[in-house]
C-alpha cells in the first residue's frame, strides 16, 4: 500500500513539475533547441534543478541495501556505448525537435485535451511498438 502511494505521488510530482516549469510548452523546448535563433535557456534551468537533486540524493539512496518497499534496486545493467544507443538518441532528438515534446511532457499534457497532444501520444506509442517489432527489443 505504501509503495503504491509513493509511486502515485512520484508520478504526480513529476507531472506537476513538468507543467510548473513550462516544459509542457513546446515553444519553450523548441526555443531551447533553437540555438541560432532567440535562444531560450529555460530547459537548462529545469534540467539543472532536477539533476542537481538526483546527483545528491541518488548517492545516498543507492548506498542502501535495498529500497524501502522492494527487495532489490531495478537499475539498467548496460554500460556499453553502442550503435543502438547513439542511433536511438539521434532519432529521438530529431523527433523531439520536430514536435517539441519528449515523452514526459507529452503524456503530462493529455489533460489539456489538445488535438496536437493526442496525435503526438498516439504516434509515440506507435513508434515504440514498431521499434519493438523491428528490433525485437
Amino acid at each position, binding site marked *: 500500500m505504501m*509503495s*503504491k502511494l*509513493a*509511486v*502515485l*505521488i*512520484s508520478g*504526480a*510530482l*513529476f*507531472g*506537476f*513539475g*513538468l*507543467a*510548473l*516549469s513550462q516544459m509542457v510548452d513546446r515553444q519553450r523546448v523548441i526555443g531551447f533547441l*533553437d*540555438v*541560432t*535563433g532567440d*535562444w531560450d*535557456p529555460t530547459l537548462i*534551468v*529545469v*534540467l539543472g*534543478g*532536477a539533476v542537481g*537533486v*538526483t546527483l545528491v*540524493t*541518488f548517492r545516498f*539512496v543507492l548506498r*542502501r541495501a535495498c*529500497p524501502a518497499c*522492494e527487495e532489490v534496486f531495478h*537499475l539498467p545493467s*548496460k554500460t556499453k*556505448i553502442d550503435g543502438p544507443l*547513439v542511433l*536511438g*538518441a539521434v*532519432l*529521438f*532528438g*530529431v*523527433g*523531439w*525537435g*520536430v514536435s517539441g515534446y*519528449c*515523452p*514526459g511532457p507529452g503524456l*503530462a499534457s493529455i489533460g489539456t485535451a489538445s488535438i496536437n497532444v493526442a496525435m*503526438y501520444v*498516439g504516434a*509515440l506509442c506507435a513508434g*515504440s511498438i514498431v*521499434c*519493438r517489432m523491428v528490433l525485437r527489443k
Partner: protein
Amino acid sequence: MFDDVPVFSALTGGVLIGLSATLLLVACGRIAGISGILNGVLDRRSDSAWRWLFLIGLVAGGTFHHLFLGGESAGESTLVLPMIVGGFLVGFGTRMGGGCTSGHGVCGLGRLSLRSLVATLVFVAAGMAIVYVLRCWAGGAG
C-alpha cells in the same frame, strides 16, 4: 535572452522532478524514465501495476496544474505532420536508445552513467540540428 526565463518556476519544477525520481528510487528501486515506463505498459509486462500508477499520477499532476494554475493558453493551430512524424521518431528512438530526457537525462546523469551522458549529448545535439535545418528550410521556402 534571460529576461524571458521564468527562473523561479523553472527551478522549482526541476527540483520537484528530481524529488519525484528520488521518491520512486528510494521507495521502489525504480528509475523514473518515462519512455521506459510507457514501454513496460505497451508491452503488457506482468509487473506493470506500478507503471500504470505512475502514469496516472503523471497525467493527474499535469492536469491539476493546467486546470488550477495554468494561465490562458494561446491556443495552437493543429500540427499534423510535426506531431505524427515527431511522435513516431520519439517512440522509436527512445526504445532503441533505452531512454529519454528523464531516464537518461534526469536519472542517468544523477547516477553518473556514461551511457546516459552520451545519449543526452547526442539527443540534444540532434534536436538542435533539426531545429536549425527546419528554420533554414522554412526561411528558404518563405
